[in-house]
């Protein structure tokens, strides 16, 4: 079976390397904006739950993981296009990305129109967190699947 594998695959990264890249470049770096916001508020001595409620930066993580997983799927389209799994993952990530962008817009709209609506803000924060966690899971599974397909073994 090894003899059947083309020469070019020696350039492809192994499973662990791809997953480590996903953790570093998607999870950790995408959390930088939120981390910076919290750090600046803590330096100013104004760190509270309200600051977290008013921070839409968690949605950057959702956008980042969805966008990079969509790019990975797009790169795999020459050999995966037409598969049900490819279509389902692609549309789940794409719809999640659109909803994350809509949530970000609602955060901004709420800040402009009526910054003192704690109920709507709390609901936005709650659903944005749920969406972010689900998109992180979906993105991780997508990267895991593509890594298993493309990794040398």
């Amino acid at each position, binding site marked *: 079976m090894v003899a059947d594998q083309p020469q*070019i695959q020696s350039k492809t990264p192994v499973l662990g390397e791809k997953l480590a890249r996903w953790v570093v470049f998607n999870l950790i770096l995408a959390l930088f904006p939120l981390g910076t916001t919290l750090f600046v508020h803590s330096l100013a001595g104004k760190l509270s739950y309200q600051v977290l409620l008013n921070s839409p930066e968690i949605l950057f993580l959702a956008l980042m993981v969805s966008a990079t997983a969509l790019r990975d799927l797009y790169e795999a389209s020459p050999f995966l296009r037409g598969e*049900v799994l490819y279509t389902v993952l692609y549309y789940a990530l794409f719809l999640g990305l659109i909803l994350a962008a809509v*949530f970000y817009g609602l955060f901004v709209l709420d800040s402009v129109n009526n910054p003192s609506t704690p109920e709507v803000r709390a*609901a936005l924060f709650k659903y944005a967190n749920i*969406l972010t966690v689900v998109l992180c*899971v979906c993105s991780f599974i997508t990267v895991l699947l593509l890594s*298993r397909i493309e990794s040398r073994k």
Partner: protein
Amino acid sequence: MSTVELILAIASVLISAFALFASAYAVLTISRGRDKAYRQKYYEFLRQKERVEQRIVDARDHQST
């Protein structure tokens, strides 16, 4: 619950459920070993790519001589 909250909740639940379904489908694919079939497709794609690249190199060599 206001209308905005209701719309947010429905949109979040629907899209999260769809994303979780996609994730579960992918996990099932991996656990059943179906990803090996995709790997064969990937190797076939790489072979085709290599053949095309080789043809381009051969054509360039032919032109230069």
